[in-house]
């Protein structure tokens, strides 16, 4: 699994370079996009179906890394960096700590999926058909706008979040309080009770 994630380090730098270079390099960028999303989906499927939870966590991290590359294709470098920092860095480490703290000795013999596997497969197949059909027939409102139409600048993020006329100030403060209370609540829940 470590080899799986290290394979993906190679093309990670190339999407941004390929999308920024105009002309003939765009073709290479497009081919790399399909390869990249294939790797992302493949590691996501591995994270869902593998038996060993460590392998699940590592392939999950590789898949999140792939999503960061997709963010680069969509023209937001800041979110790609945030994705690598928060998801690949923090959430994966949290998950691995969770796996190590809750290791079950009987885990080897148990089934990976519960009795709802086939209905769940049907429902997720329905999700896939419905969502991908409605995405496939989506007509782009303004054809020909490049990825550069989206602002790719960190300097704009502060004014958007904090200027009152943009309307995100209250949500920004609320999400800060939510994050603080969630972290304190996590500590309180996970703390060992002393009787």
């Amino acid at each position: 699994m470590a080899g799986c994630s290290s394979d993906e380090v190679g093309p990670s730098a190339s999407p941004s370079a390929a999308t920024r270079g105009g002309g003939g390099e765009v073709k290479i960028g497009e081919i790399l996009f399909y390869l990249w999303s294939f790797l992302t989906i493949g590691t996501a499927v591995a994270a869902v179906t593998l038996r060993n939870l460590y392998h699940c966590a590592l392939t999950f991290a590789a898949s999140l890394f792939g999503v960061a590359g997709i963010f680069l294709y969509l023209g937001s470098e800041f979110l790609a960096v945030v994705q690598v920092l928060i998801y690949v860095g923090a959430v994966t480490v949290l998950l691995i700590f969770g796996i190590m703290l809750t290791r079950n000795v009987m885990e080897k013999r148990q089934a990976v999926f519960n009795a709802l596997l086939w209905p769940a497969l049907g429902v997720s197949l329905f999700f896939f058909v419905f969502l991908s059909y409605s995405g496939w027939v989506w007509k782009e409102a303004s054809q020909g706008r490049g990825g550069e139409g989206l602002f790719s600048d960190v300097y704009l993020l502060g004014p958007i979040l904090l200027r009152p006329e943009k309307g995100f100030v209250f949500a920004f403060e609320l999400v800060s309080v939510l994050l603080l209370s969630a972290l304190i609540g996590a500590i309180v829940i996970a703390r060992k009770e002393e009787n």
Partner: protein
Amino acid sequence: MIPVSHFLVMAAVLFSVGALACMSRRNAISVLIGVELMLNAVNINFLAFSRATGSDSEIGFVFVVFIITIAAAEAAVGLAILLAFYRQWKTADIDRARMLQG
């Protein structure tokens, strides 16, 4: 130029894989992985739509920032609940979480 629909289809695949994990895995950590995969698919959708539509393209960006924040909080709280559950029942199998069923 990659069309937006390709991003949408890719996010649809990611979302259904996450939904499958969320519905059918037995271990709670795998369910958390599925939830995070679904949230990432939604993030890709937000960014793709904000690239595709015209003037207010920063709205989707801000939503993705909020979603990432809330997903981090959700992972922390979910793992704390998992630890408390494991301490009580000595298993991470969430099919065993039937205390509220009566």
